[in-house]
Structure formats: structure tokens, C-alpha cells
């Protein structure tokens, strides 16, 4: 199988992907979770697996797995298409019963496992002899954690709040100027300095 993907595949990794490609349809996992809004990067099937995975990664936080999964899908827009594709494939692998069996787990798709079994499956990937699976585990784990802890309420719950009040910036739209000129921008900058701090000096704006 010839594949010019992103993750470095060993021979076994390549075989796993071949398996994933041919058996996904045979043992379908739970696809009942639907996205709330159209997806930016993942397929609906991949998204359903991601929601199940997110539920385990951010378990014991206030996070809503569906929101986390949407945030991950949005974040993936910024990654190279090759990375998006590989993470999507990894989600397919995770929900593949045969792959699960071949890597020492039960012959059941991830989305159909009980929570404790899902945790075991994730730990198996994290501890796998295959660098490919460890790498996929890290990638997906980090994306879910980032999606949750980057939100202001989650950050605030840990004690982090911005130290300076700032007004809402203009919305980022597909077109239209974000910043017209730095001088005007700096003049408009309504920043509340903490008491006692020296005034910022102009660094030579035109």
C-alpha cells in the first residue's frame, strides 16, 4: 500500500491502516452523536469517535465532550491537510474492532466500549510498541485538552484570569481589514495599566 501521509508508518502501521480501510464498514461503531454545526475538518463518522474519545480525555472536568470535539475540529483547520487526514484516519483505527483485537484489545469498536474499557484502550495506544499509535494518542489527547483548557471559563476555574481588561476587538471576517494602521490602533488602545506601572513608551510608530 502506497501512502504519502504524515505520520511515519512502520510496516505494521501500514498493515493496520490497510485493515482499517477495508473493515470499517463491516463492524460499524456507534454513530448516533451528530455534529451541532457543519464540520470543518473531520467526517461525521470520525467526529462521532472524537466525541467518545473527548469524553474520556476531559472526564472529571466541566467540559462538554461535544463542544470539545467541535473545538478540535475547528482547530484542525489550521493544521496541514496531511495532519488532518492522518488524525481522521487514527480516529477510524481507534473505532475499528479488528485493529483493536490486533493491538491486544477487545474486538469491539471504541464507541461501543464501556467507559473503563475505553480508558484501557487509550492507555494501550499510549503505551503501544508502535510509535504510530503512541503518536496518534498524544495528538488526539493534546487536542482535546487544549480545546477545553483554552476556554476562558476552564482557565478561570484554575485561577487564571487576564490581568488587564481589554475591549472586544473587531470580529475576524473572511474579508475586510483587521488593522488599518498601527498608529491609529495604538491611539485607540484602551488599556488599563495596573497601578504603579510605568507608562508604555512609544516604540517609534509611524
Amino acid at each position: 500500500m502506497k501512502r504519502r501521509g504524515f505520520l511515519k508508518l512502520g510496516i505494521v502501521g501500514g498493515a493496520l491502516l490497510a485493515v482499517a480501510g477495508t473493515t470499517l464498514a463491516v463492524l460499524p461503531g456507534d454513530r448516533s452523536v451528530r455534529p451541532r454545526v457543519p464540520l470543518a475538518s473531520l467526517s461525521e463518522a470520525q467526529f462521532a469517535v472524537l466525541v467518545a474519545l473527548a469524553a474520556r480525555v476531559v472526564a472529571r472536568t466541566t467540559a462538554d465532550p461535544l463542544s470539545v470535539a467541535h473545538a478540535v475540529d475547528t482547530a484542525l483547520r489550521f493544521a496541514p491537510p496531511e495532519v488532518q487526514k492522518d488524525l481522521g484516519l487514527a480516529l477510524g483505527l481507534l473505532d475499528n474492532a479488528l485493529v483493536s483485537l490486533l493491538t491486544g484489545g477487545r474486538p469491539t469498536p471504541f464507541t461501543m466500549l464501556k467507559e473503563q474499557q475505553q480508558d484501557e484502550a487509550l492507555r494501550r495506544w499510549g503505551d503501544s510498541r508502535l510509535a504510530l499509535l503512541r503518536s496518534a494518542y498524544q495528538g488526539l489527547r493534546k487536542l482535546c485538552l487544549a480545546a477545553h483548557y483554552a476556554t476562558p471559563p476552564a482557565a478561570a476555574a484554575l485561577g487564571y484570569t487576564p490581568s488587564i481588561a481589554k475591549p472586544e476587538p473587531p470580529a475576524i471576517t473572511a474579508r475586510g481589514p483587521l488593522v488599518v494602521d498601527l498608529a491609529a490602533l495604538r491611539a485607540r488602545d484602551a488599556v488599563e495599566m495596573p497601578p504603579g506601572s510605568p507608562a508604555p513608551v512609544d516604540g517609534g510608530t509611524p
Partner: protein
Amino acid sequence: MKTLPAGITEGQTLEGDLEVGCDLAVIGSGAGGAVTAATAAQAGLSVVLLEEGGAFGTERFRQREDEAYPFLYQDGGQRATKDGAIAILQGRALGGGTTVNWTTCFRTPDYIVEHWRKKHAVGGVSVAELAPHWQWAEERLAIAEVPLPLVNANNQKLLDGAKKLGFETALLRRNVIGCAGTGNCGHGCPIGAKQGMLNTLIPDAIKAGAAVLTRARADRVLFESARAVAVECTLLDAWGVGPTGLRATIKPKAVVVSGGAINSPALLLRSNAPDASGRLGRRTFLHPVVAIGGFFDDEVAGWRGPPQSVASHAPVHRGEEMGYFLETAPVHPMLAATSFTGFGGAHAELFVNVKQAAALIALQVDGLHDDVVGGTVSVLSSGRAALDYPIVARQWRGFIEAQKTLIRVALAAGARTVATLHEGPNRFSSEADLPRVDALPWRTGSVVLFSAHQMGGCMMSDDPKQGVVRSSDLRHHQIDNLFVVDGSVFPTATGVNPQLSIYGLAHLAATRIVDGLSKG
């Protein structure tokens, strides 16, 4: 042919294709590009400065990680080595990495410049020649030692621990004016105190007449009979993700590539630039980082205050073994959450106490040993850059050693528990536990590693068989009117945080480039 007006034109707002001429096209607005653009514009050249990132100003910097990483970092903050082993933090915005960096400033150490001269035939730049240019940067960017009251609890832990172990430590110099210690250097300075390119050399360049075009990604440089004749750009939407469908073509007399490590070699590879050395994209170095979270009884709040104000270079000279130096990292919720390992309950149980955590880091100096050849850049089928960076045995040994030192420093500073960034059992609470460090899973994907310093890939050398550009003015060995001016020209890691090394070298090279171009 048209010209662009002085000032910032945002690529996403253009209504049609653009074709402009100029003396000098500079690709990338970071440390190397901004210095070059300002120097050239001030010498009277017409300059177009191209940047694929967005023109975000102080107003937009709201101390939020969910806004900063997608818009100010390469790949929305998700860049990593090809095997995912090393997370790569690298800027992508007007001002490049200097818009999000942590403001630590060091001149290039003598032993590094000397190593380049001896080992890599770098004869055109010496410490004596660089010194006035470092000094220029120090003055222009207000680089000065951090005042003691601004040293935050996180850095105080490093200072205390390192001192107790008898390590030499130093307060850092930073490029700020009126820093209020918001702690948000990595998210774009919310009060404009940081003297990055956005607030200094880019305005200087504009004042001298330079045109800046943002959301313009240079896809390739076109060559005709061994000369660079055009730069072809895709204009990107306001998100910086998709193309608007419009293109910009710049037809300059000379081209300066300043996209930074990884990106500059990727651009030249996409352009099929000649490469007699075979080194294009090779020898890419990362200062790979191992880290720990030290948990203290008192509050650290590692997100407040300047992220870095203390360093120790005590372990930098280790002969045959890998040298490294000690600094800190800011402990913001998202950055820290993705650093600590595990998931679910195991992650949350540790992370809920993150306010008590200090983050200490060890940066490994890669590229000084013969078998540590760094990474290789390639271009994916989508045109995006990828970096293959195999970690060799000597480096793993170095990580283990550095990890032990970090744990010792944290314990000496009074940490109750220290967590390494490995999957599985990774807690240490006394020196007696240190031998267990050897048994941690030291393999890719089982330990979280980072890089915030990318260097090399278009290395300088006066020998065309060894380097992509010559050292005296960073001119490409095969193309007379093509220059590379950024961190990608370093033949090895710099052994210190690289920005001041880049400012100084860029200013020296730009002065010589401008001289050469004015003489015709």
C-alpha cells in the same frame, strides 16, 4: 508596473490580482525580515515586505490562549516534528516569532561563533564584527536586565534551586519598555510593552517608505538564468487558512528570504532553488526541551509576570555529552494542560493544582556533535512544510541527564512533588528517587518534548559544498540576487535564546546587502 503604497496592505482585502515591482522583496516579517526591510528602506531602497501571518496589533492581544495560538503561531500552534515527538512553537504573524516570544535576549556566545568558524567555514562574521550590530539592536529594542521586582515566583524557584545546587545563575535581559508583568508575552503583548518587530523595526521600515503585504504566502521564487526574478504569492483569507483565489506577484531586483527555519528552506525547496551543497533543509536544529512541573505548597501562578527572567548556563559545556541550559516556561492553562501527560482523572487530579506548579525547562544545545545532525525539512504534497527530526542516542542520554538536574533544582527549591512529562508513573519527591529517571519511557510519543527555537536549514558557510549561503552577506551561493536572512542560516543551535543573534547578524548582513545593491 505598479507599486504598493507605504504602510500595511492586508492581503485578504485586495479585490484583484496584484503585480508590483520594487528593489527588494523580503519574505517574512520576523526577526531577520523586519531588520532587513527597515535597513534597506532607510538606505533608500523600495521594499516590499511579505508576511503570510495577519497584521494583528496590540488591540487584538487579549491574553487568551484560544485566540493567540490559532492566529499567531505556525499551523495554529499545532506544528510538530513529523513523528509528533517534539511540539514546535513558532510564530506566524506580522512580526513573526518576535510577536509571541518570551523576550529573553542573549548575544551569541563566543564559543559558538568560534565553532562555526572552525567547523563550518564561517569566515565572514566574527564576534568583533557582530558586536556593534548587537549593540545597535540592544539600543533600538531597549534590551535591559529585568528589574528584580519583576522576577515572578516561577523564576524565583529556578533561582533558589539552582543557587542551592551551586549553579551559576543570571538575571535575563529583555526587549521591553514599561513591562507590567502581565505574563502574556506568548499571546502578543497586551500593552505594547514588548519591543518586538511589530512595535519597532516594522514601523521604522514603513516610516522609511516600505510596503508591507500581510496574508500573502510566498509560494515560490522564480529563477531565470541564475537570478531571482519574481516572488509568487497566494493571498490568504482573514483566518490565514484558505486562499482568497487572488495572487500577488512581486518583481524585485533582489530577494531576501526571511521565513525563519523550516519555512525558509521549504520555500526554497518548493522553488527548486539550486542546492550545490545538498544541505538545503538539512541541519535544522531545535534546542529540544525537556521540562518538569514542580508542585509547591505555596502559590506560584506561573502565568503572571515575565515568563523568563532567570537562566543558568552551568551545564552547557559537557564535552562529549550534550550540553543544556536551564530556564522557565510560563504556566498558562492550555500550554500546561497539553504538557502534563495522561488523561481523564489522572490528568485532572494533578492539573487542578496547576496554580502551585513551577515549570522548569532544559534546552539542549543541538548541532555541536558530529552525530547530532538535526532535522530535515521536506515539502508535503499540500505544499506545507514538514520536519523529520530523528533523536539520536546521545540526545536521549542528554535528556535523561537534564531531567535529573531539573528534578534536583525543583526539589532544592522546595517542591513537594515533581512531575515529569512522561506517560505512566512520573512523580518524584526526593533525590533518592533519581535513579528511576533512567527507567522512564524515553521514546517518542511517551514523553512530551518541545521547541521554541528553530534554527538552521539554510546554513551559512563560505564553502559552497557545505553551505547554502555564504557568511559575509548571507548571499545564496548559486543565485547572485538571493539572500537568506533569518535563524535558518545558523550552522548549529546558538546555545542561547536566538533572537538577538538573529537581529545582530541580520543588521550586519543587511548593511552589506544594501551596500552591494547600491553599488549595482
